[in-house]
């Protein structure tokens, strides 16, 4: 299933106190959205299930911002 920008932000909003429509690409998961390490990993697990993909653990651990997450997903989808 293709992950739209809207759907990605809706998914992120389930984990934080920011509404999906207020989430921007520049927001950092930890500092701006207050994700804990566990939150971020749980979110990635959810993404993997949603997209039926397997993330490269070392690569995903480098993701800091919403935009980087969107780019990573776009690259994965492009490669399929």
């Amino acid at each position, binding site marked *: 299933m293709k992950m739209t920008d809207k759907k990605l932000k809706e998914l992120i909003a*389930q984990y934080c106190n920011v509404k999906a429509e207020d989430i921007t690409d520049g927001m950092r998961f930890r500092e701006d959205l207050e994700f804990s*390490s*566990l939150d*971020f990993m749980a979110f990635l*697990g959810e993404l993997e299930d949603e997209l039926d993909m397997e993330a490269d653990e070392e690569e995903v651990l480098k993701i800091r911002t919403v935009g980087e997450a969107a780019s990573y997903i776009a690259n994965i989808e492009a490669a399929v």
Partner: protein
Amino acid sequence: MEEKQYPLTPAQMIHHLPIRQLGTMQCINVSAVLALQSPLDFGLLKQCIELEYERNECLRVRFAKAGENGEVTQYIVPRHYEDISIRDLTGMSREEADHVMQQWAFETFEPYDVPTCEITMLMLPDGYNGMYVHLDHRIADSCGMIVIINDLMQLYTHFRFGADMPAPLSSYREMLERDLAKTANEKRIAKDRKFWEDQFDQFGEPMYSDIQGLRVLQDSRKRHGDKTLRAADLELENPAVGVKDFNLDPDATRALVDFCMNHELSMTNLLLLGLRTYLSKMCGGQEDITVRNFISRRSTHKEWTSGGTRTIAYPCRTVISPDTEFLDAAYMIQDVQNHVYLHSNYDPQLLKAEMKERWPIPENTVYDSMALTYQPTPIRMENPHLAGIPIWTNWYTNGINTKKCYLTVTHNPDGGLHFSFHYQTARLDDHDMELLYYYLMRILFKGIAEPDMTVGEMMLTL
């Protein structure tokens, strides 16, 4: 109507299995008091408690016998049928009332087909009034307990003062079904299994460590006649638990929090580093250390408000050489933990079985003696209508545990950290906990002051 039966989730099994190991339901109790130094309308509070039973599905969970070896299933009854009682302890001193409530924490639930949560209204000394919540750990962990208490008090302030009605809680049943589906996701299971297998291939069999030093493992080696044994015996004959609490003041806590913020570290990983450094020191500089880390898998809004038990435990195993700098060691732990979190839907019982298959250690022996849980959620009511009112809160131990030493770290309302050590009295005493806390603090504060000091140098300074 026959209620739908569900198996237990892996998180519930963590609390269920000790019932079999210890042969008593006492180990399943979780008990806490919350009272305000203020008059309460007990008629209204009773209505709020009844409403809480309606709103919060986990409070209506019961367990049914499903086998001859202690197996159970769970089901949710449509409503709570039992009356809400009130107890008057006003004739006692605070200490006496506390002692009475501690005794209540030892009272066991029947194993099958009974309510698994009792909420009792309380009149306490010094003008405190509130409630005592006594529940089965399989239906709520400490975060679940805080959700219950906060929601109840929000209901009370809604009806009493016209505050906003709290938002509906998410469905325990929905989250249960979701968790069980995740547990059955074969693709994910295979990936999680591979992660742990890779760990085992890389590092080999873990090695037991203990704050009492190498002699504990040596004793187990003698007992089992195996000089190469790397696991030590659990104490199950006498699992009585003592509690030793310490408070770190807000300023010192701020220093730790700032260090974590400035270096993008989590407090859990800093604490794990402190504990593993002390264990290493006590075991002659042993590099391979495992600490069991309990995490509450609550990340989404639905998970936070569904009640239930979502606490799960995995070994945090690190092999750190003495020439590793403190900060680098912290990042090594963080890296391990991040990977573990990514695989945190994996059933710890599967992990245990796989380890046992690979390394057939004797029954009831383990590789870890120390467990940690860090709970960033403060035990307080974030309710503006109750601001400024003195609060009496306390968690009461159920008195027994299969773990030798279990440290729970929480935040105090004043901003400081609270360290609560639960230790098996057959093996450890208060003094051991005083030493452990003392050295843990020395390690942490030495480390944040000189993050480029190696862990080997640090151990020499202790």
